[in-house]
């Protein structure tokens, strides 16, 4: 058999530089947003206002974090959630407060939504003793277990089975709670997801697997790192599934509520792909050569926070004065958080040994 010419063999799909002229590439194709108005969704006017406050808080908290990082107030990674706030907010409003949530390292929005105060969050970023994880975790490991937010995790895909484990405990104890495990499009490629989906379906665990598909895994576009439509992963496991427009908080709320009800009722898992977009780089040191400014602008035009504001104004749920008040108040709250973080003490060096074991005086090898 003649040997084939091999120079033009390609393995990984190509990306950068392959764009067709003039057409702005899209990180993700958004499904249509829900047409329902807030009343039809069962949301009160106060709910809308609270949703706006929550999303605005997440945004300002992270914008200020970024500034503090750039000023050198803290180190490590800083993965910003900016652009994705409708997902955390819509979900937390749709879930019961006791339902379990776990996520990856892009976790600030989730933490704030589940009751980490801006002060506790900012202090964690600064590595201070007053932080939500006592300064031991930093940006990637916000957590508030008492509010059933089990934290952000740094190993891509590592927390996916853990989310199913929380569901296992809920089923075992008959709590009637569900759990949801949130992860990026990049994490879809980890074996952990597939092993866990199989078991979750086999064992009928009340868990929702949610992909926050923001179009990119670090510098790699989703179509370059994963085959087919992500949502279709569910088919092989005969799992129920849905695709949601993550740039619209009403759509997230509507669907996640339906799904949560279904999972709670039937104790069977669900696989959800929420399409969204991250405005900032992967972390702070990302030159973002893999996407164009135009592409980013396409999504910023449909910003979920502005969209909700427009809705509230045009439906006369609140007036400009409401927004001025909320935005000023939150701005102040975030600035106070920065001051609090700055002035808080670092943990004591001995505190390093705390939280390794449950005993008061555990054994440490020397």
């Amino acid at each position, binding site marked *: 058999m003649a040997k084939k010419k*091999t*120079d*033009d*063999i*390609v*393995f*990984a799909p*190509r*990306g*950068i530089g392959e764009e067709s002229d003039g057409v702005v590439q899209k990180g993700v194709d958004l499904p249509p947003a829900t047409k329902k108005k807030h009343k039809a969704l069962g949301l009160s006017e106060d709910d809308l206002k609270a949703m706006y406050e929550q999303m605005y808080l997440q945004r300002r908290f992270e914008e200020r974090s970024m500034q503090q990082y750039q000023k050198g107030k*803290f*180190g*490590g*990674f800083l993965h910003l959630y900016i652009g994705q706030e409708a997902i955390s907010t819509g979900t937390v409003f749709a879930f019961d407060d006791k339902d379990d949530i776990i996520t990856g390292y892009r976790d600030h929005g989730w933490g704030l939504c589940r009751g980490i105060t801006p002060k506790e969050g900012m202090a964690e970023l600064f*590595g*201070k*003793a007053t932080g939500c*994880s006592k*300064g*031991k*975790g*930093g940006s*990637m*490991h916000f957590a508030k277990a008492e509010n059933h937010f089990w934290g952000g*995790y*740094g*190993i*891509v*895909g*590592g927390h996916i089975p853990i989310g199913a484990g929380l569901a296992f405990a809920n089923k075992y104890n008959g709590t009637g709670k569900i759990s949801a495990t949130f992860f990026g499009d*990049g*994490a879809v*490629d*980890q*074996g952990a997801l597939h092993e866990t989906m199989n078991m979750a379906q086999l064992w009928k665990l009340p868990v929702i697997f949610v992909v926050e598909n923001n179009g990119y*895994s*670090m*510098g*790699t576009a989703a179509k*370059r*790192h*994963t085959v087919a439509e992500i949502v279709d992963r569910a088919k092989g496991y005969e799992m129920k599934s849905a695709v949601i427009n993550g740039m619209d908080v009403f759509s997230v709320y509507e669907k996640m509520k339906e799904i949560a009800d279904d999972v709670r009722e039937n104790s069977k898992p669900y696989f959800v792909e929420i399409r969204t977009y991250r405005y900032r780089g992967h972390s702070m040191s990302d030159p973002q*050569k*893999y996407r164009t400014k135009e592409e980013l602008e396409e999504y910023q035009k449909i910003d979920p926070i502005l969209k909700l504001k427009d809705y509230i104004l045009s439906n006369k749920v609140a007036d400009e004065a409401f927004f001025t008040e909320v935005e000023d108040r939150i701005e102040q709250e975030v600035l106070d958080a920065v001051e609090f973080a700055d002035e808080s003490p*670092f*943990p004591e*060096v001995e*505190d*390093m*040994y705390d939280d*390794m074991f449950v005993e008061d005086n555990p054994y*440490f*090898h*020397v």
Partner: protein
Amino acid sequence: MAELQFREAIKHAIDEEMGRDERVFVMGEEVAEYNGAYKVTEGLLDKYGFKRVIDTPISELGFAGIGVGAAMGGLRPIVEFMTFNFAVLAADQIINHATKVKYMTGGQADCPIVFRGPNASAGQLGATHSVAYDSMYAQFPGLKVIYVSEPDDAKGLMKSAIRDDNPVLFMESEQMYGLKGEVSDEEDYIIPIGKGKIKREGSDVTIVAHGKMYHVAVQAANQLAKDGVEVEIIDPRTVKPLDLPLIIESVKKTNRCVVVDEAHPFAGFASEIGFLIQREAFDYLDAPVQRVTLPDVNAPFSKKLFDAWFPSPKQVIDAVNQVTYRT
């Protein structure tokens, strides 16, 4: 001699070996179009094309195993892990397969593969991104483990690693990638695997230190020199096979030894060296061998805790003072 950054030295080695051997290829997360998360593979895609510089999904277990299979199939993969902290997901392929396939098949299959990437901590990245894995892997038969400290070592040993017909783990450090150093411009510069180097001569005490810890040892040695203590620093460069004769010879001269290791203390590089010295040079020792390691605690995020956690020149100086009875 040319002055190169650590990352450039590694890249030159890979580039030269890819130029010399069609079977060598690179794969890993962000290695191709993004030019490497830490720019170690910068320019290789342009030069060698999509066939030989391959971006992978975040599927460490999968692509490590594809590497093992490709090696069994006659290729010579260089598999990059964004850090060895993520190679934990691929440990099954490294430990259960790469190291064992030749043995289990009675020598029928070879596995000439290089797994490379940064090892250990890189500042405040928290508990899951800060573990040193060289000692752990060195426990397993069938692997060669390299953890280098300077650009010159990186160049010469990377070339050896790629040419080696066995699985080799080649460890680097995010924090050393920008480090500059003189690199031999000898054509086809090779440093044999298993050869350590005396990087500083001294007669008072031997410090054994590799990887990032080598630089901590140098800082300590410079400080100690001001006090009239002359430290001999041995960088084994290769954890396994270990250049034991070089260490023993030095200890026979100085009669004292401190091992500086970036791993946690239990059953690590430092304990191994300590054991070997007492076995081979017991009668030459004027003090028990001491070690400086990480504490038996996960990496904390907070800067203050991290700085206390990470081995410091001060701790090395204290250990030297202890073995020289200067305290």
